[in-house]
């Protein structure tokens, strides 16, 4: 049986989170009432003209630089002509043969091009009538087109997550697939492992989550395999993902494809990007996820896995570094965040956590100084989560300070040994496993406040000094 390899390229549309639309001053706010964020320009009224939003260009430039693209000093806006009710001018202003940027790289995947365009509105279908909401019309988009450099659903998923992370680090896109601020079309073909040429590809649209992208690719690989195995040919076509049936289905074939009749938009001047602008934007590009991960491993001695988890969201990475700054314990900080804090919340919600980075840092510091025990710390953490109070406040209020006073602990030890003479004898006879039992009893007696190291020290001394 022939072994096949998938060849995958992705086209990603990212909504830029500028305050106003790309060619007019209308707000881009997501939750506005139907057609509230519209004006003559974005509704395509006769006589209206587009004026380019500089901020949108700046955002697009950031992504072009982050992906190491070559930025064209002069790029051209073009009209993509087609009829659809959500497209009020009958054309979309996009870029065609002179895009903003070309030839970049994200990890192992080469970027073919990045261009700017305006989003369309939304059609809403009622039972009797259909409606058009143009709030989205004119929201700036960048389209990021990769080369067909991915070979599996996993590689595609990794690339997509990396893109999303970059957009979020640059603070230019929400990266929310469900809400549609980050959309992905998949171009996929398969070929026998021995074959050099690409096979015929299908384009899959309408995929609104990372998981579905991976599932759609896996489904499509199997479907195309079956087609080829049965001696037929893969048809070049556009397919849609049906997330309920977990399969793709044909939308239109190449023959039915639109002729978009692209031509330069005469209403807009060529977009000139002087070097000074590029330099200015460059200065505003922050450390991105991949670099940060490297740094976390080197600077803090974290494992690749932990560092990767911490940098998945900019806010989380920032939170981590704030905690470290206070407690100076990167590994403890990483553990507390990854295993305790992320059990309660998610990386994207971290800024809204009731436990501030300052408080978590202080908590770790208290453990480190021996003021509280690790066990008590978990209790305190819970109380911090529920109340938003500082660990110090909780420790003082509830008297949870660790007891390290040898006299007090000695007394607890003696009491426990006295009450368990039988086990003491057994221990001394060689059943040393009982040590844990004694420690537990003493801890119980201290209501968890005894310093475990001190318990250990005194207990050992008592047990080993036989006939006292």
């Amino acid at each position, binding site marked *: 049986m022939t072994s096949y390899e998938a060849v995958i390229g992705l086209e990603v549309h990212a909504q830029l989170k500028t305050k106003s639309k790309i060619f007019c001053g209308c707000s881009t706010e997501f939750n506005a009432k139907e057609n509230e964020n519209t004006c*003559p320009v974005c*509704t*395509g*009224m*006769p*006589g*209206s*003209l*587009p*004026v*380019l939003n500089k901020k949108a260009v700046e955002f697009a430039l950031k992504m072009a630089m982050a992906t190491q693209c070559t930025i064209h000093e002069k790029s051209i806006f073009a*009209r993509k*002509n087609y*009829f659809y*009710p959500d497209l*009020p*001018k*009958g*054309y979309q202003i996009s870029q065609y043969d002179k895009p903003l940027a070309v030839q970049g790289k994200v990890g192992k995947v080469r970027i073919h091009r990045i261009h700017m365009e305006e989003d369309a509105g939304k059609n809403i279908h009622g039972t009797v009538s259909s409606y*058009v909401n143009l709030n989205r019309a004119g929201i700036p988009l960048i389209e990021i087109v990769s080369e067909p450099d991915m070979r599996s659903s996993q590689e595609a998923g990794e690339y997509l997550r990396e893109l999303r992370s970059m957009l979020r680090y640059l603070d230019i896109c929400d990266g929310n697939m469900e809400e549609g601020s980050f959309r992905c079309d998949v171009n996929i073909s398969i070929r026998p492992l021995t074959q050099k040429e690409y096979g015929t590809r299908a384009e899959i649209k309408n995929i609104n989550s990372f998981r579905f992208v991976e599932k759609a690719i896996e489904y499509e690989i199997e479907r195309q395999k079956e087609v080829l195995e049965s001696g037929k040919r893969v048809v070049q076509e556009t397919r849609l993902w049906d997330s309920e049936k977990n399969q793709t289905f044909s939308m239109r074939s190449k023959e039915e494809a639109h*002729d978009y*009749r*692209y*031509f330069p938009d*005469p*209403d*807009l*001047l060529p977009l000139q990007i002087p070097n000074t602008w590029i330099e200015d934007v460059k200065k505003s590009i922050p450390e991105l996820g991949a670099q940060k991960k490297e740094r976390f491993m080197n600077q803090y001695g974290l494992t690749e896995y932990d560092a990767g988890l911490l940098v998945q969201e900019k806010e989380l990475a920032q939170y981590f570094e704030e905690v470290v700054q206070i407690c100076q314990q990167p590994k403890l900080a990483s553990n507390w965040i990854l295993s305790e804090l992320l059990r309660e919340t998610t990386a994207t919600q971290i800024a809204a956590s009731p436990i501030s980075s300052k408080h978590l840092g202080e908590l770790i510091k208290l453990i480190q100084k021996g003021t509280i025990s690790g066990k008590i710390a978990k209790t305190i953490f819970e109380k911090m989560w529920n109340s938003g109070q500082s660990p110090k406040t909780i420790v003082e209020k509830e008297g949870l300070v660790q007891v390290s006073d040898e006299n007090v602990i000695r007394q607890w030890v003696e009491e426990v040994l006295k009450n368990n003479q039988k086990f003491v004898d057994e221990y001394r006879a060689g059943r040393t496993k009982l040590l844990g039992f004694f420690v537990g009893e003493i801890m119980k007696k201290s209501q968890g406040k005894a310093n475990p190291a001190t318990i250990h020290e005194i207990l050992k001394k008592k047990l080993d000094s036989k006939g006292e």
Partner: protein
Amino acid sequence: MIPLYDYSLDELSQKLQKKEVSSVELTQSVLKRIEETKAKLNTFITLTKESALQTAKTVDQKRIKGEVLSPLAGIPIALKDIFLTQGIKTTCCSKILSQFIPPYDSTVVKRLKQNDVVLVGKLNMDEFAMGSSNENSCFGPVKNPWDLERTPGGSSGGSAAAVAASQCLGAFGTDTGGSIRQPASLCGVVGIKPTYGRVSRYGIIAFASSLDQVGPFGKRVKDVAHLLKAVAGRDSMDSTSADMKVPDYTQFLTKDIKGLKIGIAKEYFIKGMEASTEKVVHKAIDHLKKLGAKIIDVSLPHTSYAVPTYYLIATAEASSNLARYDGVKYGYRAKASTLQEMYRKTRGEGFGREVKRRIMLGTFVLSSGYYDAYYKKASQVRTLIKRDFDEAFKHCDLIVTPTSPTTAFKLGEKMEDPLQMYLSDIFTISANLAGLPGLVLPCGFDEKNLPIGLQILGPHFKEEKIFHLAYAYEQSTEWHQRKPTV
């Protein structure tokens, strides 16, 4: 006594400033003139009588209070029905927009309002500014005031005819391939198409965006200078509007043109041109020589490519600009049961023949596989035409040409022959392709007593030079004093 409407805009501006007349009196006079003549000429699509009188009254009050007012304050003018006017129907003389009431004012209208101009109404035109005879209007053709059986020219035929017949003291039109200059010539008035980018296109229904430009009509060169000054200049709503200072054009109106170098291009005197037109234009050139201008031969070798180049670029842009008239959001919508059917029927029923012809042409030239051969090639030729002028203007200050190969032709004469119709813009189209300013003013009459216009072309943003020459010519001739009897 001369009725008020028969004076020139500049004369009336003085009278208003001296408070010899009020704007209300003037507006009433103009409105009466419109009432008496509009049925004969079919110039007005919409009359805004009440708001006109209201504005006139307000201006008079301002003047009484001693406010400093624009020279245009209180002057009745009218607009081609292509300028969006908030709350006032704007149809582009198309069935598809016959009920369209715009939600905003075009920049030109805003600026006119800031100048306290009295807007008396909206004027007839060729549908979507496509045409050279005003016969492509869904409201029927405008009649030429000099001969009611003849065309006023197009597409701004209503604007030219209304000014010629004193139905307003000035009017605005648009010019994509000659739509101001050709009707100005055929109606015996002054009209200017300024440099591309001189006047904002915001709020003007687009025909061919890279060629469209706004300009005024008037009875006199000075009237047109006043009107252009009021609307020209950078507009942040139009990316293609130029960020350049607007001079006070009236300051350049002197009679001395000694030493001015006037270029004459042989490519503009061609076979098929009416003999009387050629003769009259040559006479005008001789006259300029007598005034002291130096006449220089220049060459514009790519002139013969202008018409085909224009009809590729203009139709391509139009096919895209007119895509928005799809029945979805505004304008005419045909009854249909599917989306595709709604599109087809709405556009099939809503657009006229010429508009559909151009949409189809433009759709074709942009089609995949044809783009390079047509649109791209045309854009390259356009550059060559522009270079012709750049070269010519190294040797002369201005270029003088005929405006139209014929005087006003009979209505219906060319309707069945679009190619013949397209050739009536043969002398005006190059200025649009090159983005140059061009003014037309009366320079004589043919044997049928039909007016002939002289075209003056200038370098980019040198409108003041054009005004200078035009004024010197006008003031030393009598042509502008002839009036049609309607």
